[in-house]
């Protein structure tokens, strides 16, 4: 009996040793641009580092350096958003959920990326992700123990759940502010899912990989719906039409993906 056990375990060990462990780490980076240039805010830059402490680019961020299609000059002081259901799809029909919900806060460099260890070898042909939370996820207190719960909570009296995005700053002059807060106004679903083709072969011999998900901020305001801060800056949380217009702009050309190896 002992001999049989010994032989069996020897065989098992031998076989498992032959199977190559997967060792590819995949990092998803969240970047932000305005007209193609990396975002600079009044309190720091989206590439992190020294800009958080009075670096010159922070001062630059306080100027109204950006312009939307409506001709309004503006800056960006707050940007917090949720990206959910970040999923890789492979050519054999399998899906791999990388993260259920990821919170990005432009004032916290630790939120700019996350890494998935030991991604299974495969040919991944597309990536999908949701801007905000769909109706399954956008439920009051569902993420009560997450760091973003209090910063992103959306009042229950207005549909509940969470803000998809808080985008805030000044426009026209330093003391007029806009708040672009998107979420499930009156219980509606204004999240959207993007699926983009990528060519991503995960093979241990090829090394670690990163995928960048970029948000082109100015495009939230431009096309197909031109949005003026002077009309909507005071708040759109109760405005279903505006939630829909911003959702359409978001679907059109706000997000882009690139893969770097």
């Amino acid at each position, binding site marked *: 009996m002992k001999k049989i056990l010994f032989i069996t375990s020897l065989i098992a060990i031998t076989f498992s040793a032959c199977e190559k462990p997967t060792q590819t780490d995949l990092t998803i980076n969240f970047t932000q641009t305005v007209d193609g240039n990396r975002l600079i805010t009044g309190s720091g830059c989206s590439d992190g580092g020294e800009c958080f402490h009075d670096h010159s680019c922070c001062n630059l961020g306080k100027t109204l350096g950006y312009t939307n299609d409506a001709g309004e000059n503006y800056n960006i002081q707050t940007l917090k958003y949720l990206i959910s259901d970040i999923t890789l799809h492979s050519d054999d029909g399998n899906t791999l959920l990388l993260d259920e919900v990821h919170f990005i806060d432009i004032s916290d460099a630790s939120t700019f990326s996350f890494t998935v260890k030991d991604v299974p070898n495969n040919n991944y042909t597309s990536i999908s992700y949701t801007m905000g939370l769909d109706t399954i996820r956008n439920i009051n207190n569902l993420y009560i123990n997450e760091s973003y719960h209090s910063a992103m909570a959306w009042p229950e009296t*207005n549909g509940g759940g969470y803000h998809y995005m808080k985008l805030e700053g000044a426009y026209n002059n330093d003391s007029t502010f806009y708040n672009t807060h998107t979420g499930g106004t009156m219980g509606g679903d204004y999240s959207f899912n993007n699926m983009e083709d990528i060519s991503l072969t995960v093979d241990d011999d090829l090394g670690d990989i990163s995928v960048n998900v970029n948000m082109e901020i100015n495009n939230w305001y431009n096309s197909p719906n031109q949005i003026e801060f002077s009309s909507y800056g005071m708040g759109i949380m109760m405005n279903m039409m505006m939630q829909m217009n911003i959702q359409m702009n978001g679907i059109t050309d706000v997000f882009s993906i690139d893969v770097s190896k």
Partner: protein
Amino acid sequence: MKQLICCVLATILLFSCKKEGCIDPIALNYNPDVHINNGSCEYITTTPYDIITPYGFPDMIIPEDNPMTFEGVELGRKLFNDPILSANNTLACINCHMPESSFSDPNQFSTGIDGFLGNRNSSALINLGWSSSFNWDGSVKSLEEQAFEPVTNSLEMHNSWNNVENTLNQDEEYLLLFKQAYNIDYIDSTHVVMAIAQFERTLISNNSKFDKYSRGEEVFTKSELNGFAIFNSERGDCFHCHGTSLFTDNLFHNNGLDVEPFLDLGLGKITENTSDNGKFKTPTLRNIEVSAPYMHDGRFATLEKVIEHYDSGGHFSSTVDPLMKKLGVGLNLTNQEKSDLIAFLKTLTDYDYITAE
């Protein structure tokens, strides 16, 4: 096999000449003169204190090295109420954090043992176990760390920790209580603040009219409902900073109180980042009715004055929060809307809490 038994017997015989007793140094009846453990060791047993997560609250984060026990909480309560922590034995934590004022001070500034006034309004102590930064400027990250400060602050208890330790270690009752709670023979500052922090974590308010309304046990009046709607929409826009069941985002904002230069830099003094100047921690609005005066410097004596501030839109400065989007315009609430808002804020008063010991 026989050899082994012989061997064991021989060993027992060899050691039996020596005294038996408790050989474990952490046991209560540890005897350094004995060498054989006879199973008589007696240990301190603490009773775990379970924090039950209130409806709509996140789980409380409790430091692993300071688990909640009944003994620790009771010791912390005693310390909180005892002027022994102050240099001249006249001032206890509770004197500036009074239960009937939601564990804050109804005076704009509190008076220390030397008769000097502080420069910020005493914070209300409510639901602190759900926060990860303390003081108006967020200068400390844990309750334990926070409790170190008032004891030595020259405007407050003006004591030294050396003196606190000396005093406490001469007190038979405290020696026993610290032994029971933490199994220590010498009382040190670290365990003093640990006990106080344990007590503070039990200061939970979750039984206001708002809570009863949320649990479906009570109904709001028309005025309270209307106030709640103003609070929770961009009409009043209170919820962005005072949202969720905690009624605070636990973050720091400049809410447009002052123009520059700021008299008090707040968070900016701590982070040395000028973009944080003039920012202060959002206080919870629970028990706000009884925790007057308001703001970090207690400048507003009444809730009406607070509402007036937000209704006016506030003052511009380079770090004012973009959430203050009615700056220069004002909310322009009607008198009815203002009184509805105050009616709602008063539903956050927890009478069980402010009458608790």
